[in-house]
C-alpha cells in the first residue's frame, strides 16, 4: 500500500511506546521462573556493577550480561532499541558535557581550543557515560518486563522485612513503590487523553523529530493539566485503597507465594562474583 513508506506514525499519541521499559510481560522464561527476590537482587547487583565499574570494558561486560538477560527472558529487543534511540539526543548531550567539561590533567591532549582541552581520557569518560546510561536503561527495562507489580511488592517486602525490627515502616515504603509503578502507565494514558483533546481542537502535534523547541512547545501545555489530573487520580486511588481495606490489618498477604530453589542460590552466587570482578578489574 502506498502509505506504508510514510514516516507519519499511525498513532503518535501512544506515549507508552516511547518508554524504553514497557510493562510487565507475563512470559514463561528461565528468568521469570526465578524467585522474585532473586530477580530484584540481580537487578540491584547489576546496577551496583554499572555504577562501580571503573573501566569501559567492565561496562561493556555489564551491558552484555544485561542483553543476554533480555534474551533469556524472551523480551523483545525492539522497544529497548526504540527507547534508546529516542533518548539518544539526551545521552549525547551528557556525553558532550562530560568530554568538554571534565576536569583532568592528562598528558595526551588530542586537541585544544583556548582553555578547552580534550584528551583521550576525556573521550573514554564520555564513552563510559554513554555505556553507563545505556546499561541503566537496559537493566530497568529488563526489571520492568520480568517483574510484575505484585512480585516487586512481595519481593521487596520479604527482602526488607529484617528492617521492620528497627521499626522502619517497610510495608508503607513497599506500597509507595507499588503505587509509583502503577502510576507510570496511568500518567502516560492521561497525557495521551489531554494531548488528543488539544490536538483535536487545533493544537500543533506535527512530528517534531529533533526539533527540541517544537517538542517543548507541544509538551508544555500538557504538563499542568497532567499534574492536576494526576493529583485528582491520586486522591481517588487513596480512596479506593481505603475502600478495599488497605491498612485495616497490620499484615498483608499476596496473590503469589514465594518459593526459593537451589537455582536461585546458584544464580545469586554467580551474579555476586561477576559484580565483584567488574568492580575490582
Amino acid at each position, binding site marked *: *500500500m*502506498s*502509505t506504508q513508506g*510514510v*514516516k*507519519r*506514525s*499511525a*498513532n503518535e*499519541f*501512544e506515549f*507508552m*511506546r516511547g518508554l524504553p521499559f*514497557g*510493562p*510487565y*510481560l*507475563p512470559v514463561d522464561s528461565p528468568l521469570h521462573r526465578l524467585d522474585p527476590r532473586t530477580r530484584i537482587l540481580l537487578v540491584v547487583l547489576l546496577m551496583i556493577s554499572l555504577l562501580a565499574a571503573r573501566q569501559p570494558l567492565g561496562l561493556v561486560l555489564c551491558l552484555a550480561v544485561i542483553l543476554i538477560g533480555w534474551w533469556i527472558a524472551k*523480551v*523483545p529487543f*525492539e*522497544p529497548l532499541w526504540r527507547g534508546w534511540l529516542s533518548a539518544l539526543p539526551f545521552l549525547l548531550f551528557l556525553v558532550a558535557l562530560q568530554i568538554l567539561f571534565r576536569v583532568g590533567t592528562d598528558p595526551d591532549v588530542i586537541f585544544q581550543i583556548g582553555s578547552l582541552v580534550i584528551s583521550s581520557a576525556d573521550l573514554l569518560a564520555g564513552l563510559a557515560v554513554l555505556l553507563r546510561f545505556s546499561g541503566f536503561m537496559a537493566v530497568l527495562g529488563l526489571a520492568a518486563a520480568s517483574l*510484575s*507489580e*505484585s512480585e516487586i511488592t512481595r519481593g521487596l517486602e520479604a527482602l526488607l522485612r529484617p528492617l521492620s525490627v528497627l521499626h522502619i515502616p517497610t510495608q508503607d515504603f513497599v506500597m509507595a513503590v507499588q503505587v509509583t509503578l502503577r502510576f507510570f*502507565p*496511568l500518567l*502516560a*494514558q492521561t497525557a495521551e*487523553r*489531554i494531548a*488528543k*483533546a*488539544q*490536538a*483535536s*481542537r*487545533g*493544537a*500543533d*502535534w*506535527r512530528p517534531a523529530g529533533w526539533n527540541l523547541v517544537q517538542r517543548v512547545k507541544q509538551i508544555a*501545555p500538557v504538563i*499542568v*493539566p497532567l499534574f492536576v*489530573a494526576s493529583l485528582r487520580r491520586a486522591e481517588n486511588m487513596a480512596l479506593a*485503597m481505603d475502600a*478495599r*481495606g*488497605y*491498612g*485495616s*490489618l497490620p*499484615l*498483608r*498477604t*499476596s*496473590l*503469589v*507465594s514465594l518459593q526459593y530453589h537451589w537455582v536461585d542460590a546458584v544464580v545469586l552466587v554467580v551474579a555476586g562474583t561477576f559484580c565483584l570482578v567488574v568492580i575490582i578489574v
Partner: protein
Amino acid sequence: MEEDAAFGPESLALPPEQIQRRVEESLRQVGLWEMRQRSPHLLSAGQTQRLALAGVLAMHPLCIVFDEASTMLDPSGRSMLLETMQRLNREAVTVIFITHFMEEAVVAKRMVVFSHGQVAMDGTPDEVYAKPERLAALRLDLPPAARAAAAVRASFPDLPEGLLTPVQVIAALPEYPRPAATFPDEIPAANKEDLPPLIEVNGLGFTYMLGTPLAHRALVNVDLRVGVGEAHGLAGMTGSGKSTLMQHLNALIYPQEGQVRVAEFNLNDPNVERRQVVRKVGLVFQNPEMQFFEHFTGDEIAYGPRQLKVEEPLAERVRWAMEQVGLDFDTYKDRPLFSLSGGERRKVALASTLALKPEILLLDEPTAGLDPASRRDLLDKLLAMRDSGLTLVLSSHQMGDLARLAHDLTVFYQGRSVLTGPTVRIFEQRETLRGYGLEPPVAAQVAAGLRAKGWPLPQGIMTAEALQAAVAQALQGVDR
C-alpha cells in the same frame, strides 16, 4: 488485572490459595477471566468498570455501594451488573445502587430519591413511579417502559398502573380485537439524494501498540458511509471499536490498513494535516470533562479558535458556541470549570468543539453519565443541530438515544462493522442484535410484543410517541 482484583483480599491478609480462588471466581463473574493477563490501563471504559466490580466482589463484602457503576457499560454489561446485584442480594448481601437510569431502579426493593441533599421520596419503586408529576418536578423521569405504557394508555384506558418493565407492559396488553389483518409494512423511503457520501471508510483496520508484545487489534475491515446532513449512529458493546473509529475520522489516528476519506480530506495522504481536518470535523470525546485543560469556562471554549487563529473576534465566536448549547455567555464565561454541574460541563465540552464551526460533529457517548433532565436537554440540542444540517456521527449505549437521533446505524462487534442500514431496519432485527450484545429500544420491544398479539402495527416504531400514534391508528375502525 488479576493483581488488581487481588488487592482487597491481600489487604484482608487471606492465604494465597484463597486469594487465587477468589480472584478467579470474581473475574469469571464479571466476564473478564479470559483476558486476565491484560494490564488494567489497556482496558476499555466498560471493561474497567467490570474490573472494579470484580475487585469489590473478591472481598466478599456484606454491603456493596454501586455509585453510578453502570454509566460506561453497554446493554449486556448492564444486565450482567443488574443480575449480579440481584444474585448478591439473594445471597443476603446488602446492595445500594446509585443510578441515573430509571429502568435500573425498578429491580430495587426500596427506592430513595434525593434532591438538593435531602430525601425527596422514599418507597418501593412501584410507589415512587406512581407519582410521575412529583418525579418530573425533581427533574427525573419514568422508566422507558412506563413511558411506553403511558403512551398507549390513551387507547387502552383499562391498562393497569405500575407497569415498569417491557415484559410487564407486553403481558398486560390485550390481543388485537379483530382477526389479524394484513400488516402494513410501509416505511417512508429516506429521501437520500445521490450525493457522494461525506465520510467514506473502506476496509479500515487498526492495531494499538502495533509491533509491541501488547499489540491489541481494535478494528478489522470496517466500512462506513455517512451522507451530507445525515445523523449516523454507532452501536456496539464496549471495546467494539467505536471510539477508535471516531478518532480516525478526526485524524487523531491515521489509518494503518484501508482507506478513510472525510469531506475533501483523504486521510491516507500523508500530506493532509490534522489541523486542517479538525476545522471541519469536531470530536466530543467520551467523558469530555475529564479532558478539560483550562481553568475557566470561556478559556476552555476559546482554545480551539485561538489555536487555529479564526478571523472572527474570539469573544464573538465563544458567545456563538455557548448559545448553541444554551449556556449564557455573560453568566458562564468566567466561571471555573470545576464549579459547574455535570450537565453544564458536558455542554461546555460540546461548545468547545462547536467553537471551530465544524461541518461534521463526532460525539462519543454524548449522554453517558448525565441525569435524565440534562440528557433530554442535550438530546434536544443535538436534534436541533441535526435538523439545521450538521452531519452527526454519534456512538451510544442508549438505544433510545440512537433511535431518536440517528437516521442510519452501524453496529460494531469485536472491531468489525457487522450491520449497517436505516436505524428502523436495524432495530427490527432483535435476535441478530442480541447476538451482538444489544437490545432494541423499549418502544420497539413493546411494538414487537403487540405485533405478536396480532396487532397490525407498521415496522419502524422506536419511540413512545410513534407507538402511541400507531396504536391509535390500528384501533380505528375496530368496534369497541
